[in-house]
């Protein structure tokens, strides 16, 4: 059972996401971006950083990276581990994100937002909105991945 966050976990979710054609319709579809996922660890421990790569209809998985890699991604999503876990718990419970647990709502409800970038280029940051349904479908796919708590 993969643990969140880990390369295995992102790989397992990517396998579900890539195997379900319904994620390509209903506002999903071609998506080309590199998105960082930053999981802030409790007690000031270093954050876990992963780079998610989407190419066309596929997610190529999430590779572990260091903080310097965030300069190269289009945008990155950063939250404390507890908030990521709460979001994933909601997805597990309902089969998809509900209420304030969608990526967009999380972005809106946080003072500094969920998605941001190092480069500050709004064109690239806008990819978070432009591909939002695909990103949501990706995390919603985690409802079908048994996840070990970190």
């Amino acid at each position: 059972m993969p643990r969140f966050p880990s390369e295995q976990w992102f790989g397992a979710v990517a396998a579900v996401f890539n195997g379900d054609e319904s994620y390509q319709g209903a506002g999903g579809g071609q998506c080309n971006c590199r998105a960082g996922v930053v999981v802030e660890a409790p007690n000031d421990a270093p954050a876990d950083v992963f780079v998610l790569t989407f190419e066309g209809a596929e997610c190529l998985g999430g590779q572990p990276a260091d903080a310097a890699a965030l300069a190269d991604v289009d945008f990155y999503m950063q939250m404390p581990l507890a908030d990521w876990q709460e979001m994933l718990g909601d997805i597990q419970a309902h089969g998809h994100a509900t209420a304030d647990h969608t990526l967009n709502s999380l972005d809106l409800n946080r003072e500094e937002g969920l998605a941001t970038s190092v480069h500050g280029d709004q064109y690239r940051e806008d990819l978070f909105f432009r591909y939002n349904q695909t990103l949501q479908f990706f995390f919603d796919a985690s409802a079908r991945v048994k996840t070990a708590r970190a």
Partner: protein
Amino acid sequence: MGVSQEVHLGEKSMSEAAQLDVERDLDLGWMDRRGEWEIQARPSKNGLTLADIQIGDYGDPPVVSENQTGVPRGAAKRDGSYRIGAYGVRTKSEIWLDNASFLYEEALQRQWSSATDIPWHTIEPLPDDIEQAQCAMDTFLTEVEFVAGDVPARWVARTTPDFFEARNVLLCQVMDESRHMDVFRKRALANGGGLMCATGGTAGVVGSIDHSRDFTEMSSRLHISGEGAVLTIFRLGELMAYNDAEKAIYRLCAQDEARHVAFGVMHMRYMAETAPERHEEIHCYLDEAERGILSGSQNPAGQFTQTSESMAILLGGGKANFDEGRNRLIAIRKRQLQEYIKRVKSAGFGDRFENGRSQVPELLAEIAA
């Protein structure tokens, strides 16, 4: 080679073939009149995309197009053909963007249906003030999306077919805006309410988009300032949503809107790089657009009463919580301005925020205080 064709059709036939009832020689001269030949485009990972067929002459749009006859780019010209379009947009820098093919394919593949992709069954009766506020926003957004579809449609017809990639993206935008119009109309009529009084939101700044004399003038007003502001509202729509149907509506509209904004940013970026002589002119367009932003009179999140009040009611959770909603609305306004500044910078015109020409940073500081 000769051939005898005897056609026996009734007198009322409308087919041209019915006229070919004489013995005649085949004219196969058309076989020798063609564009570049032996082209073999290959599908890439995403299928056979427009980017994959940018081969040879076919992938080489002219800097200035003399095409007034509708000849497809790369096709052999027909002698003596007459003009079919009064194409005013014939200079590449006027409309071009480097990723038009990409945006077009993306637009095609990321379509959605307002009939079947919105979970309409999740809508339940709402308190009257919430429903009225939602219907007011639906009315406003229906009006605005009408303009957002109408205006690019006019410019498509004015643009030479040689720049078909950019035209195709605009045609997709017209389709997107049609869907936005219908989805907000559907929402207004889906829960015991209906459309409210027309807001007049298409007068003034929004309506003036249609008076643009130049494509870039139109794009700076429509794609950068107008749709940029609406994109922020769609994104923030999830905070105003009371069920999964409304959340889905706003989220999916925001995706489309982000694509339209991307068109504007990339077009202005191309213009900034290839037409330095037009920089001052473009700054003037932005000056005009910012006057609308600064006055806030046509911005649903600004001082436009009908929509700003309804948004505050939706954000606060009812009339009784208006002040709380208003505070959230101010936060939205702040984001609108921050994102606007960053988009204009990304487009290559950020110097206006450094040299004091733009007053948007001052307004932003005022809101933050």
